[in-house]
């Protein structure tokens, strides 16, 4: 009976390697793993993301007979935040929850890839799925409202940091909460909070004062500030603080995710 040993390929291959070269190779492998593993979903997710962004952009005009440019600009520059955080913050933890339910979660944790590289690969996938939706939403908004958009280079750090914080928050939620049902519930609640009670698509002045103050402590309001400022090249004095708050959330969420992934009960 033939076995697979023709070229000695079966010889044990375990090595303990660390360093940048190994990390880069692992990063490429894990991005490919995620993209292949989500190939059916990613197309669907990207389409739903783009459609929901376009839906917000076009739908807001139905509230007004003549929509003020300022209102159209506000909504259109808020939609990218939703495009950028939705996959990492909502779909990410739901994916982890489904892996826990299916029993494949533990296998994925035993892959010989560092936690940081795994997180970086997932962040890349969230960017890949979010950025096309941002572009589609903005193009449709521009065609529909002829907006005074002046996109500055600051759009790059704004997009990268907004997506990073959303991804790390979702990562922490998915990995730190052991019960898949709780993860599903919390991620659904986050959708509710982001759409209804975070000043992303409408000005904070529209909210009760206490709710606006409460929002200062959370990252979503600040994400809208940095994205909007970069899309309109406006000199909003709130931008530095906004970057700081989003950055702190990214670091705390990444630390929590790293801790929960490395935890051995």
């Amino acid at each position, binding site marked *: 009976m033939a076995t*697979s040993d023709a070229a000695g390929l*079966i010889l044990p*291959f375990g*090595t303990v390697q660390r360093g940048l070269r190994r990390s880069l190779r692992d990063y490429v492998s894990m991005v490919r793993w995620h993209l292949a593993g989500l190939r059916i979903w990613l197309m669907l997710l990207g389409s739903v993301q783009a459609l929901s962004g376009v839906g917000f952009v076009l739908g807001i005009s139905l509230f007004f007979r003549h929509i003020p440019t300022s209102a159209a600009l506000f909504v259109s520059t808020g939609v990218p935040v939703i495009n950028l955080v939705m996959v990492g913050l909502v779909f990410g933890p739901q994916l982890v929850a489904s892996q826990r339910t299916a029993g494949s979660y533990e296998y994925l944790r*035993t892959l010989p*890839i560092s936690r940081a590289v795994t997180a970086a690969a997932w962040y890349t996938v969230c960017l890949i799925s979010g950025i096309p939706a941002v572009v589609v939403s903005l193009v449709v908004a521009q065609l529909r409202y002829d907006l005074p958009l002046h996109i500055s280079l600051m759009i790059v750090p704004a997009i990268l940091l907004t997506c990073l914080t959303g991804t790390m928050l979702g990562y922490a939620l998915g990995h730190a909460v052991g019960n898949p049902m709780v993860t599903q519930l919390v991620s659904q609640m986050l959708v509710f909070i982001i759409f209804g009670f975070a000043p992303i698509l409408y000005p904070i002045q529209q909210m009760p004062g206490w709710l606006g103050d409460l929002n200062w402590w959370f990252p979503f309001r600040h994400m809208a500030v940095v994205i909007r400022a970069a899309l309109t090249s406006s000199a909003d004095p709130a931008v530095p603080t906004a970057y700081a708050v989003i950055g702190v959330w990214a670091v705390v969420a990444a630390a929590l995710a790293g801790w929960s992934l490395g935890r051995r009960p």
Partner: protein
Amino acid sequence: MGDLRHPTGGSVDNRRAVKAASDEWTFHVDHLVKHFGTVAANDGITLQIEPGEVYGLLGPNGAGKSTLVKQTIGLLKPTSGRITLGRWDLVENPDAARQLCSYLPQAQMPIESFRLREAIELAGRIRGADIGRVRRRTDELIEALELGEWSRTLGARLSGGVKRLVGFCMATISPGHLVILDEPTNDVDPLRRRLLWNEIRALGAHGSSVLLVTHNVLEAEKAVDRLALIASGRLVAEGTPSSLKAADRAQLRLQVMLVPGAETPAQPGWAGPPVRVGNNLVTTIAESDAPAGITWAASLIDSGVAEEYALGASTLEDAYIRLTSDIPADGLHGDE
């Protein structure tokens, strides 16, 4: 941290040298204790697997097999004790454990969206092997396990047995020095099961230590070099399949298929303690009592209590049942 790249040359000539050098990769579990609250899932387990050895880990549900595996691969931390592979302390270096060990979990791999070949190749790349090696080994595995007809099929469309084989390929595409296989033959058809055992034996023959977790006692008997029986978190027996059956030597296994609903018949004094699973009643008898055993079983059929019987040599399963249902306080060892 140093790079411990193992010589991986392909020629038969240097394979002997590799085999000799691989002695540095002995797997040790030393007085391993794992408590969950007040429950001792592992209660002082000590075992050793030499490079090239296929080592079976058997035991009933909840015996502590998975707990041992999860501590080895870095998913759980022991309460006390050591786990080492060569010079690496796997408890202190869980990242090294993940690089040095290959693992096939009991649950199916998450490959619904992957094509069969793609899943295996990606797993190989993630394990750190170069692309040429990965492609050649994938070809070999697909051929050896006769998976060619599904090579481009999506995982979601594969049967449970084929998925299981893909999982095995993913775990062993670039085998670690310790290969942990948790119920590798689950759902696999009898023909490919035979091919799979050949591959498992080949892993050992080329220098990996194989830790095989299974409930399938009869299959394990043919495939492993040594095995351990674990019950209630303790290693209750260890040795070769033959040594564990030694106590049952000169014993025969009398199996009686009872009529559904029939009460368990009174056991003759010369028969061993009976084990009934469903309508299947199994007991052991001395070879000298074979005529009496046949007469007794035939009388059960005549009286309408049983439908058929079989008399044969005792198996490892008999030893398994004996050892795991009557655990001595201080353990029991086969050929140690």
